[in-house]
């Protein structure tokens, strides 16, 4: 019994140390973005020799939003002779096919890809479309996004740098005032892009291609063999593929695109579970190749490990809470009298609350979202919600690995009405 108690205590110390490492990481990123030297993107470069673009918009039952994004892409100021748009109708059962075909009739650069056979899902759809595309640069938007007029030019210009393999823009929720969840998600997005992505770009770590509002070199992508259809986080997979092969991913905070954030908690839970599962799948597959890659610096490797493990941490905390409960009933909480008390309390209360809170607060300060900052204490409740959803996703990824399970892609529900308004 003593050995079991010892193992449980060691586990808690291990968890606490991990959480402190993440706390320090959050803190450094926040200070770096607020006060440090900022690395700029390429948006000020003017060049008339732009690369050819293939824009991909995966769609599965997207009748509520399909017209909006296609209209925005038609209005884009990118030279028409260098642009092709692939709306990928992926097994839709609603009016998506009809909407896309109507657009294609009027605009020859819109080239629909209708998929009714084969595996459904974003990776499978993109793989198929990439093969028939001709553009040098691939750009991906999710169907609910509303790209502004000049965004394609801003995205494409990064590839004038021969070291850049992929780039990522900033995502801004368009339906923030809708309800409490969308307001809280705006805070989370703000911290994720304004601080996390920018700081990783500043510090030459691993900015992440996020799967939408992102671009990459299509020829290089094809040399990777496309996306793995069984991985739910094709964006993380692509990021690490590029880094492992010696390419860089850059982040463009100024390249903003609006999205529709989930408006109900069930949709949000499914989204987190999918991200956690996919991200963890990538961790299992790419952690070792990343550590062995000669093209990645030591700091990039450290950041890569922390980035790949990020969805494992909520599971570790959940397990830590369960173990604390066991130790409590065994009367072994006297560990709290040692240094361990300090470590555990700091860890639980900072990773769970303060570290992300500080990052969220500073991100909202930079964004000028004054009123939203006052919602920070409410994120305490979201902490348990995220803990649960991420843990479920993580466990699913472990089972995927153990039992070689087949993955089914789950679409995020849309809330916009057909006229373009939200909800």
């Amino acid at each position, binding site marked *: 019994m003593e050995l079991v108690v010892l193992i449980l205590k060691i586990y808690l110390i291990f968890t606490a140390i991990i959480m402190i490492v993440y706390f320090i990481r959050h*803190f450094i990123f926040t*200070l770096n973005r*607020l*006060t440090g030297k*900022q690395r*700029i993107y390429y948006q000020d470069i003017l060049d008339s020799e732009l690369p050819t673009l293939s824009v991909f918009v995966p769609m599965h039952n997207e009748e509520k939003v399909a017209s909006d994004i296609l209209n925005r892409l038609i209005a884009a100021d990118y030279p028409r002779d260098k642009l092709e748009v692939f709306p990928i109708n992926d097994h839709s059962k609603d009016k998506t096919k009809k909407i896309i075909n109507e657009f294609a009739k009027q605009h020859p650069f819109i080239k629909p890809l209708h998929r009714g056979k084969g595996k459904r899902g974003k990776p499978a759809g993109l793989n198929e479309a990439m093969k028939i595309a001709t553009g040098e640069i691939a750009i991906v938007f999710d169907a609910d996004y509303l790209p502004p007029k000049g965004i394609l030019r801003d995205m494409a210009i990064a590839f004038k740098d021969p070291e850049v393999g992929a780039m990522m823009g*900033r995502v801004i929720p368009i339906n923030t005032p809708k309800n*409490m*969840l969308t307001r809280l998600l705006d805070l989370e997005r703000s911290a994720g892009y*304004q601080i996390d992505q920018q700081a990783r770009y500043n510090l030459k770590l691993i900015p992440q291609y996020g799967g939408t509002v992102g671009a990459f070199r299509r020829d290089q992508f094809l040399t990777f063999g496309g996306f793995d259809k069984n991985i739910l986080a094709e964006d993380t997979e692509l990021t690490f593929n590029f880094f492992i092969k010696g390419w860089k991913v850059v982040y463009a*905070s*100024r390249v*903003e695109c609006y999205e529709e954030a989930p408006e109900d*908690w*069930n949709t*949000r*839970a499914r989204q987190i579970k999918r991200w956690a599962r996919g991200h963890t799948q990538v961790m299992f597959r790419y952690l070792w190749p990343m550590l062995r890659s000669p093209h990645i610096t030591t700091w990039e490797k450290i950041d890569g490990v922390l980035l790949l493990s990020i969805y494992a941490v909520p599971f570790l905390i959940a397990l830590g*809470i369960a173990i*604390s*409960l066991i130790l*409590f*009933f*065994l*009367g072994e*909480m006297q560990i*709290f*009298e040692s240094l361990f*008390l*300090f470590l555990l*309390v*700091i860890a*639980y*209360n*900072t990773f*769970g*609350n*303060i570290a992300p*809170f*500080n990052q969220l*607060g500073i991100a*909202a*300060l*930079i*964004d*000028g*979202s*004054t*009123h939203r*900052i*006052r*919602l*920070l*204490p409410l*994120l*305490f*409740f*979201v902490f*348990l*919600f995220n803990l*649960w959803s991420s843990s479920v996703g993580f466990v699913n990824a472990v089972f995927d690995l153990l039992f070689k399970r087949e993955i089914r892609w789950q679409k995020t529900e849309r809330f916009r009405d057909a006229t373009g308004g939200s909800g």
Partner: protein
Amino acid sequence: MRKSQIYYHRAHRQISFSWKSLFVEFFLFIPFCWSLILYTYPPITRLASQFLIEWNAPLHPASTSSLTEKAFVFGSITTPQMPGRYPAPQLTFAVFILSVLLIFMATKIRIPKPIAIWVIFVCLVNLVSVLFFTFLPAFFPYTIQHFSELFMKTEITIWLFVPVIMEASLLPLPSSKITKFMAILFSLLYAVAFGVVRYVLFVQILVRFSYIFMAVLFFCFGPFIDFIVVVGVYSFYVSLVSKKINQDLRVWNWSY
């Protein structure tokens, strides 16, 4: 429409900052806050314990109650020694039924999922407690004194930590030092008051109702929620700073 002033885009604005100043302020104010806590926690725990014994005097005569003093960080912690109450089988059963019912309702009734998950978490901890008191009541390892010691030691550690995390979060902000220190002190005082009030309330629940609630009090309403107050003060302060500086070009710099 012509704009009289063009502000920096959010992607490119940042503030000036001095690491030297931050370190000086940090290492000057931390010893002050820690001295305050270390100087006051022994009398605070003594007063709270005395209060609890006097409050429960009608229930427990003086012969069954006393104060115990134990050494802790640079001082000593005083805890009350008095009988608590083991749960009667009827109460254990009632807690079981109520917890199961609440879990069922939380999954069926349309309430925001984060609140439902919080309710389920509280009920699950209660169910573990029910199981323990149903099958192993003789092995319950805590008395009122043990719980008091555990809870207050945890709280004191949190009090020591509050100024550290608040300083790390607030000192880089572009606002006056005085208001920052006031916000840090306020959050510290609130954390102390909140901790002591909860401690007295929790002990009362254990003495008057049952030990069965000890786990849920410690895990769900103990250290876990301490930082809501701290985050509340932090967010209120940052929102005030944001309101003040948002359009002030003297504060913001162009990032390149």
